[in-house]
């Protein structure tokens, strides 16, 4: 066991866990942040996606010992009341079916839009293909990402 001072959603948390514990289980079991989901545990589904210093990572593959002072953002930290443009777009398109994958999809999508504010269809396919939706909501996810991109202030870059 070892002590870690983690910065999650802007708050500091002191925890005492085995250094190999993936952030996924730290979040879910120790910090009671249940929004981040377990789907495969082997980086194949994206359900556990969170942001590490603003970029999407699979938290099932991120041992707590590797986090250090880097800031973690989870779905709970995106906005308090679904006001983030990506969350709004998700509601506008009524994307979810069972909803289980959607936190991971949203965390991937926000990271995509940060790096690439006006992604093409191919960009979206490429970036999002690590996130499985077993219910098959892929078309709506793509539409929602495009809507969120339009809502963003950045102008599309001329290619």
């Amino acid at each position, binding site marked *: 066991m070892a002590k870690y001072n983690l910065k999650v959603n802007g708050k500091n948390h002191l925890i005492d866990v085995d250094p190999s514990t993936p952030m996924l289980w730290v979040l879910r079991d120790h910090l009671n942040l249940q929004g981040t989901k377990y789907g495969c545990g082997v980086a194949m589904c994206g359900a556990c996606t969170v942001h590490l210093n603003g970029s999407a990572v699979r938290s099932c593959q991120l041992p707590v010992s590797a986090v250090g002072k880097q800031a973690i953002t989870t779905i709970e930290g995106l906005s308090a009341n679904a006001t983030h443009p990506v969350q709004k777009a998700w509601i506008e398109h009524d*994307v979810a079916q*069972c909803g289980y994958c*959607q936190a991971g999809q949203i965390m991937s999508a926000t990271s995509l839009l940060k790096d690439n504010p006006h992604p093409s269809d191919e960009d979206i396919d490429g970036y999002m293909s690590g996130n499985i939706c077993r219910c098959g909501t892929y078309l709506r996810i793509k539409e929602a990402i495009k809507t969120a991109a339009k809502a963003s202030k950045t102008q599309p870059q001329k290619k």
Partner: protein
Amino acid sequence: MNMENPKTYSRRSFLKSSALTSGGLMLSFTWLSGFRPADKMAELNLPEQWNQVTGYIQITSDNMIKIFCPNPEFGQNVMTSLPMIVAEELDIDWKNVVVEMSTHDNVKFGSQFTGGSNSVRMYWKPLREAGAAARQMLCQAAADTWGVPLAEVTTKAGILSHSSGKSAKYGEMASKAATIAVPKGMKLKDPKDFAVVRNSKKNVEGEKIVTGKPLFGLDYRVDGMLIAMIQHPPAFGLKLKSFDASQTLKMPGIKDVFTLKLYEDGFQQGGFDTRTFNDLLVIVGNTTWEVMNARKKLKVEWEQAGDVKDTLTGRGGKREVIIPGRLESSSNQLEMMQERAKQPSTVLRKDGDPETAFKNASQIIERTYNAPFLAHNCLEPINFFAHVTDEEALLAGPLQAPGWTEPTLSKLLNLPADKIEIQMTRMGGGFGRRAYGQYLYEAALISKKAKAPIKLMYTREDDMTYGIYRPMYTATYRAALDANKKLIGFHVIGGGIPENPVHANRFPAGAIDNYLAEGWEIPSNITIGAFRAPRSNFNAAAEQSFLDEVAEAMGKDPIALRLELLNRAKDNPVGKNNDYDAKRYIGVLELLREKSGWGKPENSGRKRGVAAYFCHASYAGHVVDMVMRDGQPYVEQVFSAVDCGVVVNPDAAINMVQGAVVDGIGNSLYGALTHKDGAPEQTNFHNYRIIRHNEAPKKIEVHFVENDIDPTGLGEPPFPPVFGAVANALYKTTGKRYYNQPFAVDMTKS
């Protein structure tokens, strides 16, 4: 809340009112009044009390309308669509409606089954009647208060009013309404006046989902809860011989390792009480990661289980079956099926004289289709919370059929049903998997033995290799054509491990004079169960692909041939026992032909395939446009036509059809679970291929046949025909027919 004993409700009076202690009206209603005698679900011999009260509407004095959704939610959006039906007849503003999931109670709520594309279909009438009755009681309360005739009280969006200028919110009259007798024979709205139904409403849990609220079973936790996992045998046909947990028990956070029997010898299994492995090796600890890690340190010896005797009850009566002990591999599974197909089968239906028709045929087309086991792979792996003491049991988690598991649970725990509470969380997918409560029994037994609240968790690997799978199927179709290329005979013989897929009374039965359907089964120790549109998901692939070949041999357009046969079935059906309504089937094909622009030349390079199918009680068809992309088949766009009667929540319905299309493309091209010496060869998403973003079509255009038929269900019907349409598009794209699913794998073999 002042609730009468629901047990006293008679079967006939399906609506009952009572007062809320806090002021207001509560109306309870049953759902079995929605059954027609012919409905399959009615054959399940549900206990008497399940016919009683199943749902509630509350109208509080502060004008909030709370509707309890009795059925568990797994993405089919019942938490939104069922309350919409109440709101329609109650005449309220959707804004004021709060929806809550009921807990499970066989006595109070009925079976609460989600599956079989039944929820909206079964609740449609009872929910409308409940809404209409509540509205009328509120009107009566207003009429009495104002001293005006009932007929003069009108409602609009939750407001009662009278021409004299008097008006009141529903909430103000709710307490008084609770004292009024429930009316009988209310007039329901004419469908043309629908104001809520047929108008898209957003998912009532949409905001909770996008903000990551703890909605799912895996999110359920209580203080002091322990995590439990089961170390199951690595192969079907093995059982636990011995184990050494000394290393495991030294690992941090580990509380205990023990064995449990799922069922005692001779236990009478109900229809949904599956048994995959009976001796469970269980590990219990503080946190998920600790248990996962420590489990790896278990030293376990397994041995061959040999043949096992199961005592089954439920449909089919009490009987003993022998589950063979052999360790199956995919290659010998196929050989076994080929061998078995040569033996005599059970005749399921025979019309006319098929033997003579085939003898006289000038051309016989014969094709064999195969499909593998499929794992459900709900994205939320199997899990359940249980806290069982000597006196009572609380269970919470994702479950499609709480009503079917509770009687078994009661026997296993030796507790009366009223000491068992099952709470239903939102499910991260179901697809039939969660109709089988085995994991809930496991959780309950573990909690009882561990004397602690526990969460049983399957890892993804457990979920995939310890499943209740879609069976492995095969079917041979034969068509006899005469010298004029007229279809004079049709023969299907289907079998599977361990279930025969044939639906003998479905199309094209009824459309061909000489028809024969046969089936056979091979018992197996691989546990199987319902998978989104059971059996149909295979039949639609085989039959719809076969009809395409028949059409080609006859020199006919595939849609034209289907319509020709369906018109025969409509005007002059063969036999009486045809499951489908040919008129609705025709309607779907005609709509599909029109919307997809079928038959018009296209220069896009895409090749088209079509298929349509009837299952459950609805009709669906798709035109699939395919290209080859980087050497792989890619479905670029899809046109879908569906007749499911009245569409309650159109946008959510479109979402569901789109999802079924994506699911169907994925499973037909990639889905497979294979075995080696009894062990599943796929263990996680690195080798079980699930369709991904870049493989989903760019466009799926969904059209519904517009009619006023009471809803007939939507979760499953659009799924099966996708397989057939993909097979047919693949032929047009590659010039070659593929007969073995998954097609993307079959393509690499030839």
